[in-house]
């Protein structure tokens, strides 16, 4: 079947009930999304589907025909990080780092629909994703920082 990932179409040969996460990592070599719990409870596998955050570990690929999937890889690279990635580095918002990719994608979904979120809105939006190291406060700060950067850029463009 055809999967549209980060604006590119990929023809992959998998069972229709294969989780999107396996297709991304196994078939397409996109290793940003992580396997955490496999039950849609921790958020390490978060990607965007048509702009909304989704747990890729419990999303069968058969549901995704014609939908736009966005993964961490499209937000920037190590040499050229995007605003959210940059903010996570600036705030040192990682300890073991396993949740980070999912956190960034969850935040991306929020900032796409609301680039001036309040502290409460950030907390509510990030709620489904877990960090077991205790970096939550830094993560919240990083999301706030990225929002400010994105806002400033948007205003500069008029």
């Amino acid at each position: 079947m055809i999967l549209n990932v980060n604006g590119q179409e990929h023809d992959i040969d998998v069972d229709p009930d294969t989780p999107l996460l396996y297709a991304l990592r196994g078939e397409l070599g996109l290793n940003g999304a992580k396997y955490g719990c496999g039950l849609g409870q921790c958020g390490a596998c978060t990607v965007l589907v048509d702009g909304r955050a989704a747990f890729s570990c419990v999303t069968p690929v058969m549901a995704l025909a014609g939908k736009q999937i966005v993964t961490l890889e499209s937000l920037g690279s190590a040499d050229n990080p995007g605003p959210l990635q940059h903010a996570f580095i600036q705030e040192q918002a990682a300890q073991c780092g396993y949740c980070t990719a999912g956190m960034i994608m969850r935040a991306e979904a929020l900032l796409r629909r609301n680039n001036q979120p309040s502290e409460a809105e950030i907390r509510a939006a990030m709620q489904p994703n877990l960090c077991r190291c205790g970096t939550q406060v830094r993560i919240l700060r990083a999301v706030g920082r990225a929002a400010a950067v994105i806002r400033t850029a948007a205003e500069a463009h008029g």
Partner: protein
Amino acid sequence: MRFVLLLLVALIVFGAGGCIWLGWYRAIPRVQPPARTAFPSAAIEHGAVLAALGNCVSCHTAPGGAPFAGGRAVQTPFGTIYASNITPDPVTGIGTWPEAAFRRAMRQGVDRAGDQLYPAFPYDHFTEVSDADDADLYAYLMTRAPVRAGVPANELSFPFDYRFLIAGWKLVLFRPAAFRPDATQSAEWNRGAYLVQGLAHCGACHTPHDFLGAEQSGRSLAGGEAQGWYAYALDHNAPAPVPWTADSLYAYLRHGWQAQHGDALGPMREVTDDLITAPDDDLRAMVAYLAAGRNSPLRHRPPPPPIAPPAGRGEALYRGACGGCHDNSRGPPFAGIDLAESTTTHAPNPANLANIITSGIPAAGEEREPIMPGFGAVLTERQTEDLIAWLRARFGAPDPAAGIAAAVQAARSEMTQREATP
């Protein structure tokens, strides 16, 4: 022709006039907001328990707003009604209401100024609350922090925006009456009946309503509707595939979930959150009342489930999206509830299944409670419909294909609205 027209005009004039005459209540004079010392602390404490049993805070609090300060939109078939501010603020709340005015609102559905109250405020139940309990509820509410918060004007279609017409509605459909105990029943049963029929107003959601918004007579607790959720029947038609017992019903009310029956969701979650402070004896009494008699949910005998799974596009979606948690032997809390035991998959209509699949079960604050991811972001309307159709057929829901499209549409528009509001 002219005669018919005249008759019609006369009917309308006399009808409206009759409503005004019937609905004419004098205003009860304002008082200075009573001081906290005016109430014995035992009354305030008991009032707090009663307010929890009545779940007052749910309707009378706007999302994210101060408790009891009103403003929550209550959707009715006739339009939107905004719940009033029942904090003791003298301007926007009930601060200048004497106890007699509060009691009249509870007993008769008339406010301090003498205006008719809409039956969205369930005085058809509250009329049974005793004077002593009204006094304690009053003591509790009048000792909350006053919050100055106006409430939006109701958005009702003509002619329902005319309050005096409620008098006509009451003439036909409402009888103010204190609770009358049944001497042939136990004290516990009578306590349960008093709570279920009165303050706890279970029927406001769990009884089907007629086209005039009144509870259908003779169909008490036969299953109703609340804010886009189906409120399950609490009688012998209770759709639970695992028959209820008195103990499981009690546990469900006590904890907001029960291993074989799952989680209280939607408006019922607000009720069970409030019941946390309710006394054990009162919960046991409500169960004793509900469980007694020939219409008891304990008498429900579920039909056997279908032997072979049906064909359908939903099956692969089920395997891919649901099976990982719901189709294994681990069970809660390590995996999802067995859907063969779930009330949601066996309900007479698919509203709750559509809501849960679309929006999931969100984590509840700091509490240790069941959660489930929503699939509204990844499943299209059509895919959700396919999945529901298969689930309902698989687990033997009555009339499994009916009403699915409307239920999915409602669940998705609720999701979109929630995303749009910060």
